[in-house]
């Protein structure tokens, strides 16, 4: 019902052109227009981190970002991370360390952790805890998530 905007951006390494309503959030564009449902709606107001994506190398709550603002940017979602080496390592570590229960928050944590380790490859446990404080998990009690990220931070054996 609202005005549409034509935008172009890089999504998971591939050029993407799409026409989106001006008031549409990036979260809804990803999920509803582009079919990338790995990014989750948890609260819609930037408090839970389930919708975390990477935009130009910075993690964002996609629920708080207008889709139109993706124009000209480099956007990476959990689906894109699945293809990266860092993402692969993190995902394996989350599995191995039991950092997943219901799993709803997990993509957001994996995305956030990817960015955290890029910025702080040697992050300590306390730094990891700080680095994921914007992501809520109701199942795990966070400890196994922290352990998984710490494990993924270690250099190759």
């Amino acid at each position, binding site marked *: 019902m609202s005005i549409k905007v034509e935008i172009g951006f890089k999504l998971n390494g591939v050029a993407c052109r799409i026409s989106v309503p001006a008031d549409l959030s990036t979260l809804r564009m990803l999920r509803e227009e582009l079919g990338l449902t*790995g990014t*989750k709606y948890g609260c819609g107001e930037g408090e839970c981190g389930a919708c975390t994506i990477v935009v130009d190398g910075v993690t964002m709550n996609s629920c708080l970002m207008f889709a139109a603002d993706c124009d000209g940017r480099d956007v990476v979602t959990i689906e894109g991370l699945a293809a990266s080496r860092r993402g692969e390592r993190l*995902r394996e570590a989350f599995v191995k360390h*039991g950092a*997943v229960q*219901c*799993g709803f928050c997990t993509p957001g944590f994996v995305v956030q952790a990817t960015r955290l380790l890029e910025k702080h490859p040697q992050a300590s446990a306390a730094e990891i805890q*700080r680095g994921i404080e914007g992501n809520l998990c109701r*199942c795990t009690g*966070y400890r196994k998530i922290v352990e998984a990220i710490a494990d993924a931070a270690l250099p190759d054996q």
Partner: protein
Amino acid sequence: MAATDPVVVPQSLIGQRIPKLDAPDKTSGRTRYIDDIDVPGQLHARILRSTEVHAKIRSIDTSAARALPGVHAVITARDVPWQRPIGVAKDHLPLKTDRVRSLRDEIAAVAADTVEIAEAAVKLIKVDYEPLPILSDPLDALKPDAPLIHPEPRGEDVGPHLKPGAPVAFTGKPDNVAMTFDYAQGDVVAGEAESDVVVEDTFRLHYVTHCCMGVSGVIADFDPKGNLLLYSNTQVPFLHKREFAELLGIDPGRIRIIQPPIGGGFGSKLDIYPFEPIVIFLAQITRRPVKLMFTRTEEFIASPTRQPVLLKLRSGCKQDGTLTFRTAETLHDNGAYTSWGATTPFVMMQTISSLYRVPHCQYHTKAVYTNNPYAGSFRGYGNLQATFAVEAHMDKLADALGMDPLEFRLKNAQDPGEVTPQGMHFKTCGLKQCLSTVAARSDYQRKRRENAARWQDGNPVKRGVGMAAMLHVGGGAKIYPSDGCGTILKIDDFAHVTIITGASEIGQGSETVLSQLVCEELGLTLAAVTVVNNDTDITPWDVGVHASRTTFIAGNSAIGAARQAKAKILASAAAKSGLAAEELDLKGGHVVRKADGERVVELGKFMRSLHFTDKAQLVMTTFYYEPPSKHQDKQFKGDVSAAYAWASQVCEVEVDTDTGIVRLIKVTGAHDVGRVLNRLGIEGQIEGGVVMGQGYALTENLMVEGGITRNPNFRDYKLVTAPEIPEMDISFIETMDGEGPQGAKGVGEAPAICIAAAVANAIYNATGTRIYAAPFTPENVYRALHGAAEPVAWNAA
């Protein structure tokens, strides 16, 4: 068949760290939760909820909403005269007729082409209310002149809104008391007479809510024959099939429930809520699939809470430390309607009567209607509240005697073999080991003495340690006619096993543990198993995920099916190999000779040889496990679970007396889990439960004022975040329960239960101030420490 090399026997899977089978999909964003599912042709629903806490509905004008392009249906109670009351007490109509009783109440609903259109249409509906007095305190609701929240329906409400003869949501209560529970054993008067020390206190436990990360949702779709397919987050699919069938007046066989993976349960999905029937009505009327997803605000306002409780406890003991009696009087704020929260006394009274040996005991509960949100079931089911009071009194009595609280607890702790006056038979009981283990590992006794000696040292930052223990059902809970679970197990031509189980996976890891148990029986690796567990047209019956029962009940069921399959395979292999079935075993994907592990035949090859002959046989078995537990009688006595779980936790806190900030530093826990099956899974359950308990104790508080939820968002409702978690030291006490699968007992709820109680005891140990009302937020703690707390008082008579 030629014997080949001996098999390298892989070690047992039991007790190993097994990653969850669904974790690879979940970590890569591939898992499709209900919000990720769209059905072709689906419409989107939104619900209009009350803006008044308590009011009569004078009129509803839906004309503008109906006229909006893209709107397919707008419904109010008038449009669905066939609707029936739902919930535990059948006191709740999905769409309200003559009045609203709480802010969440559903008045109308819209199905439209898009969520935006549905939202716009909801805003166009006009409701004319006539406000009624608001009862937001159960004590006010109990007053003799209090207005009735559920008066007998009259006028309009028995007119066009309801089909003549259809049940109305009126349970005939003469006052606002929704439910009462009474339990008694022994003679509390005699018990008190022989007591040397008696203590009495009133405790107040607050509202919290589940905060599942995935919001509630449902998709309803009727086929042309009128069969209903429901995509649902329920954790009790088979019970809900029946309830929906009653609601629609159709045969339950015509309802199929598919359960996509769910974004958290914790008990919240144990009841039917109005949004589910409403979406079914919309699908019925529009003849289109209809999907509804809550917003987070809606999730906070319109999903259940933990039961808030006012609890008066009176306890006594003799000079030698023997407990003599306990009297508990509790008042439950039922909210506007009755869900499972009202029935938490079932669990609360077990803790009151049987966590420790108490000869004389009395328990009384009233659940009272108010205009507040209504409480459902939530991990622990009343046990956090009861344990909070009981464990405060264990410390207070010990202090009054000058006895060490650990010694006091050990003196009164249950032993294996005990049958309590309430009829619970503790065939295995590791309570004493749990208590001793946590005390030793946390250095409880020394720290407690030293902390108490520092109350007056002038340092504003104090340390404290506090202990609590818990008892919970660990072998199911027979509250329905059956507490069973069915399994269908098939083994294909390649020795791949499909476990079809009634047990729902809600993130807790049930499909992994069931696979593990089956592989252990059949000598296979986890890669050889697929679990089917989410479609009522396929899966056999199960009572649902609750009462920490799934590993125990579904686990025994899966083992039963696997053993039958194994017997069948070995009997056939015996016939072919010339060896007796008793001389054979399944190991490492082969039929082997039991004595020396010598391979007889590769299992896949053998399965094919069974299938591809003129006397073909399939290996497909079924098993139904019903635990050897009993219903409680009318006095609430009986051995309701096949096993009981025990735990103790010591919490160490730091209290800043200048700010009231309490930090949970460390939790030392010991859990009698029977036996560890999946070490990774059980650690995850316990760590998650501990942090959920931490939130209950310290940060979470659903602020309900005058019936209005003041903080329906994660900004103001504080879940614990990663930097705040305590150090955790968890020990497992393996008592090898004779009935449990491989000796295991249930654990799902246990870890959340003791934390608030132990933290309260730790704050006392740090400061010398006992706080009787949770949560221990900085404001509440500061007020308590500086004599500014509102006293918790209740004249229960």
